[in-house]
């Protein structure tokens, strides 16, 4: 006989029958069941296979301390792996599958692995798969060890929300102690939140008939009603899984199967930890057999779900609370046999238990319930920095000194007597001194003895046996942290909840030491497994990293733009065309012959103002800015203090005390932050003001030989003649009665004007420029064509043609390094041994022999030595130039090899190519078009 449903007990709704399937067979449960309680009620014992040996495993317990019953569950088209069966509420229509078992948990083909257990001890994988390389074996081993598969489609709709809350007092655990503490505090006027991980409050209190001279159910109802009447808040199906800095307690609230749970970040002034206690398994032979269960777990199954774990039950529980628990099970109709663990013990039978043998005595039974004592649940206490001390009477770790804002009460404090626990909980809740903990409770766990007769399991989930711990001890992995890593003890979802103390006591027994001498591993969040989605919340896709949008996006779409992400902005890559190549080549030809009109709004426009502005930007820039005259623009670099090129761009001087920094589109935030840092930390912030106006000034660039003709028709109120308005100058004009800033700078090598206007004028300017432009054969211009044209001119794109080692002199800008007198960011780093190395890489152009195709980007330029080819540079940009009619490339090359005209060899993915070193500028090197 196995488990069954006892009449008239539990909190389940026996009138609401739910049907479900397990490994293909149909079963029935009741509303209020968990998957595990329903399976047990149906007499199902074998619920899965163990991780390593594929031994049959059943439920060890009824709640989060069950390490065995892990399922893949399908419901309403959702399939989730890794569902802990003991904490998953049963729902009608669930399709439950055992994991780590094929074809089913009852008949698993890989169970043959268990026959070879002698060859799979702790450290087996580490020792065996060292040679030649672990990575060769890893994929196969990982596949064999899997616990289900998560489909990507499942993740799409699985979104957690994250909320923040605060309270005066957080009570963790809705058993009698937690309820009493919560009510007492609420009635003193505190804002109190009570969290309980089950749907129903009650905890271990559900297992007793009367509390404080009241019927248990009546007591619960009265307490809860009074708590709520005093303003208390109950969060059920909610588990406190971690304590973080500054009294943050993380709560996970379940929202039903297939739905992402909610994360509540609770800031509590104080916390009462009433999380209760768990059974410590007894370590004996074949103690992993289905039907060997936790005594407290069996009582909980009966009290909540009306499930009796078996009919003929042998109990091995040498502690003083066991008598009442045994009586409760006997009262429900089970035949109970109490067995003292005073000799080597062994479970008899395989998938079906036949008996328990202790010493020379055999006790016939179908179920074995064990408890070597109660272990207070102190994970949160340890997260919060609390210390533990070993109580030798209780044979358990109990709270010692700890944070003043958290206090453990009831079972979590080792106060197992209900009357004492209630007094303690109420005193702590209102801030009184706690009464001295009474030590009426006693436990006498049996010593762990190494035996060859049968294997004794210490960690059910990771298949760690006493023998494995013996091997670890023999090989000197005696520190508990080493023991854990070597044997995998206490890993996976159990995280030592059931296995930690048995593991420590085994190690202690084997080494003849005490448990406190052996030590304990660190307790880390999360206390229960939580999905990664909980931490991510809504931070996904556009909500994680929203694209920045142009105010003219609708005009670009209307013009047939192909939009793409460039530096965080959604921008037109090109317009129309049969293929991207066609469109890009056409736009380049258009700009070189007539003009292009481009939306350059993301270009940085950071204003720096104030009496110290000149000295400030002169310090920020590599180049000398102090000599820049109002109305003029200068190209320059910003460096890091390590001398590495961080950004390039132009700076315009509007008047004596006002500059506009036009940094790269993708660097606006970074440059602003850097300016603020230097402004406030090292300067007088009252004499400099930094203001990012990028979004206030949309920019339209008109570039090409016809640019000036187009601008003349836009009525900007500025003399555009080349003598009056030269290259690298800026003018303030007007467009349709609004202010306009016109900067003559160029990224294409053609005459170019960047016209910035207020947002309200942007569309009118765009439309006007295109309308006038059309008469000259000009049209909209996308970013891809611009990046080809800038490469034809040898202009760098930071981050593409520079890397984490590029210094300005590598790019050919060496004058400030040698001549600038004033201090500037990164100055000293430009003269280090590294900065002056003779083999530094120089920025060069590469040309291929006639008829050769484009060079691949990132191809290595190599030299041949005795040790084979070695890299002396790489290709950073490569295009087919329609202007020149041949491929061009930009590269970084060891300057000793970088003489113009040198032929170099390149390697890429097994292909060998040749190229000739040139200057980076391929087109109009004298700048005649630029200055036209």
């Amino acid at each position, binding site marked *: 006989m196995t488990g069954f449903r006892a009449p008239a007990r539990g909190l389940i709704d026996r009138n609401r029958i739910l049907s479900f399937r397990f490994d293909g067979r149909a079963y029935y449960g009741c509303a209020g069941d968990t998957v595990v309680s329903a399976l047990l009620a149906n007499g199902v014992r074998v619920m899965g296979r163990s991780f390593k040996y594929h031994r049959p495993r059943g439920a060890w317990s009824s709640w989060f301390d069950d390490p065995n019953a892990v399922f893949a569950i399908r419901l309403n088209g959702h399939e989730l792996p890794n569902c802990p069966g003991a904490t998953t509420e049963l729902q009608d229509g669930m399709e439950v599958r055992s994991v780590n078992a094929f074809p089913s948990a009852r008949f698993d083909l890989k169970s043959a692995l268990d026959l070879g257990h002698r060859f799979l001890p702790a450290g087996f994988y580490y020792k065996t798969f060292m040679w030649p390389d672990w990575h060769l074996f890893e994929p196969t081993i990982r596949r064999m060890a899997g616990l289900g598969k998560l489909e990507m489609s499942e993740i799409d709709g699985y979104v957690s929300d994250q909320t923040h809350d605060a309270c005066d007092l957080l009570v963790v655990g809705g058993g009698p102690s937690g309820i009493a503490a919560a009510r007492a505090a609420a009635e003193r006027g505190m804002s109190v939140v009570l969290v309980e991980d089950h749907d129903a409050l009650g905890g271990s209190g559900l297992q007793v008939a009367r509390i404080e001279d009241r019927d248990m159910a009546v007591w619960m109802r009265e307490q809860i009603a009074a708590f709520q009447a005093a303003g208390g808040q109950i969060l059920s199906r909610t588990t406190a899984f971690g304590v973080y*800095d500054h009294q943050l307690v993380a709560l996970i609230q379940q929202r039903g199967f297939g739905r992402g749970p909610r994360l509540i970040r609770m800031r509590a002034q104080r916390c009462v930890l009433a999380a209760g206690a768990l059974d410590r398994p007894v370590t004996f032979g074949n103690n992993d057999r289905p039907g060997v269960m936790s005594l407290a777990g069996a009582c909980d199954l009966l009290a909540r779900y009306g499930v009796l774990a078996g009919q003929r039950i042998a109990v091995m529980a040498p502690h003083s609370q066991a008598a009442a628990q045994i009586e409760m099970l006997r009262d429900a109709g089970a035949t109970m046999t109490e067995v003292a663990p005073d000799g080597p013990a062994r479970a008899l039978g395989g998938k079906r238990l036949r008996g328990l043998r202790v010493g020379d005595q055999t006790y016939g039974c179908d179920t074995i319930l064990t408890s070597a004592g109660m272990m207070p649940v102190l994970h949160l206490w340890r997260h919060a920095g609390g210390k533990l001390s070993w109580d030798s009477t209780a044979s358990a770790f109990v709270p010692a000194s700890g944070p003043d804002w958290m206090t453990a009460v009831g079972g979590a404090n080792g106060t197992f007597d209900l009357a004492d626990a209630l007094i303690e909980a109420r005193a702590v809740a209102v801030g009184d001194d706690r009464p001295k903990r009474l030590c009426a409770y006693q436990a006498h766990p049996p010593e762990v003895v190494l035996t060859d007769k049968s294997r004794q399991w210490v960690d059910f989930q990771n298949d760690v046996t006493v023998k494995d711990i013996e091997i670890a001890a023999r090989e000197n992995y005696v520190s508990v942290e080493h023991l854990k890593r070597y044997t995998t003890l206490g890993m996976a979802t159990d995280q030592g909840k059931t296995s930690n103390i048995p593991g420590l006591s085994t190690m202690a027994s084997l080494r003849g030491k005490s448990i406190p001498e052996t030590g304990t591993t660190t307790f880390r969040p999360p206390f229960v497994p939580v999905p990664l989605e909980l931490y991510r919340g809504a931070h996904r896709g556009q909500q994680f990293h929203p694209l920045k949008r142009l105010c003219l996006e609708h005009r670009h779409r209307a013009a047939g733009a192909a939009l793409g992400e460039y530096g965080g902005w959604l921008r037109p890559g090109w317009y129309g065309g049969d293929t991207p190549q066609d469109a890009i080549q056409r736009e380049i030809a258009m700009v070189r012959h007539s003009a292009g009109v481009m939306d350059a709004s993301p270009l940085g426009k950071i204003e720096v103002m104030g009496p110290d502005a000149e000295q400030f930007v002169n310090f920020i820039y590599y180049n000398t800015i102090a000599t820049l005259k109002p109305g003029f623009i200068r190209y320059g670099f910003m460096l890091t203090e*390590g001398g590495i090129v961080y950004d390039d761009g132009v700076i315009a001087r509007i008047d004596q005390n006002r500059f506009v920094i036009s940094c790269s589109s993708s660097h606006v935030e970074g440059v602003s*932050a850097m300016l603020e*840092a230097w402004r406030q*930390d090292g300067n007088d912030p009252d004499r400099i003001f930094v203001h990012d106006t990028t979004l206030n000034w949309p920019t339209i660039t008109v570039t090409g030989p016809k640019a000036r003709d187009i601008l003349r028709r836009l009525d900007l109120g500025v003399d555009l003649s080349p003598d009056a308005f030269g290259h690298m100058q800026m003018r303030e004009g007007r467009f349709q009665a609004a202010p306009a800033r016109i900067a003559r700078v160029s990224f294409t090598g053609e005459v170019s004007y960047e016209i910035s206007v207020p947002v309200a004028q942007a569309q009118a300017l765009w439309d006007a420029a295109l309308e006038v432009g059309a008469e000259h054969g000009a049209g909209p211009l996308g970013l891809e064509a611009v990046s080809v044209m800038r490469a034809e001119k040898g202009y760098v794109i930071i981050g593409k043609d520079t890397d984490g080692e590029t210094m300005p002199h590598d790019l050919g800008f060496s004058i400030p390094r040698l001549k600038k007198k004033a201090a500037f960011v990164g100055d000293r780093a430009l003269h*280090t041994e590294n900065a002056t190395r003779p083999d530094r890489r120089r920025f060069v152009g590469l040309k291929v022999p006639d008829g050769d195709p484009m060079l691949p980007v990132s191809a290595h330029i190599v030299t041949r030595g005795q040790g084979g080819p070695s890299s002396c540079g790489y290709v950073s940009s490569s295009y087919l130039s329609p202007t020149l009619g041949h491929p061009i490339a930009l590269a970084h090359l060891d300057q000793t090899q970088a003489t113009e005209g040198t032929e170099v060899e390149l390697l890429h993915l097994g292909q060998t190519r040749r190229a000739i070193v040139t200057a980076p500028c391929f087109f109009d090197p004298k700048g005649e078009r630029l200055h036209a």
Partner: protein
Amino acid sequence: MQKFPCPFCGLRDEREFRFAAEAGKRRPDTTRDISARDWSDHLHVVRNPLGATREIWVHMPCQEYFVMARDTAAMTVLDVEPLRKETV
């Protein structure tokens, strides 16, 4: 998650803050000769003490830099003050 008191905005979550530098560190006068060792120390060596420390942080929403004294072992904030006082 820690809570830091911005001197201008009050108590906020640590996610709104960025560490900037250890307080009291002065950029050497680079118009004079500085040994490679001194420059390297300036760039890369931080005291990073266990216990009480003074650091410069920025509260990103308001963009203000300030000095925060905190205990790196106990993770407690000891004191905050605006950076301005130090530079004036």
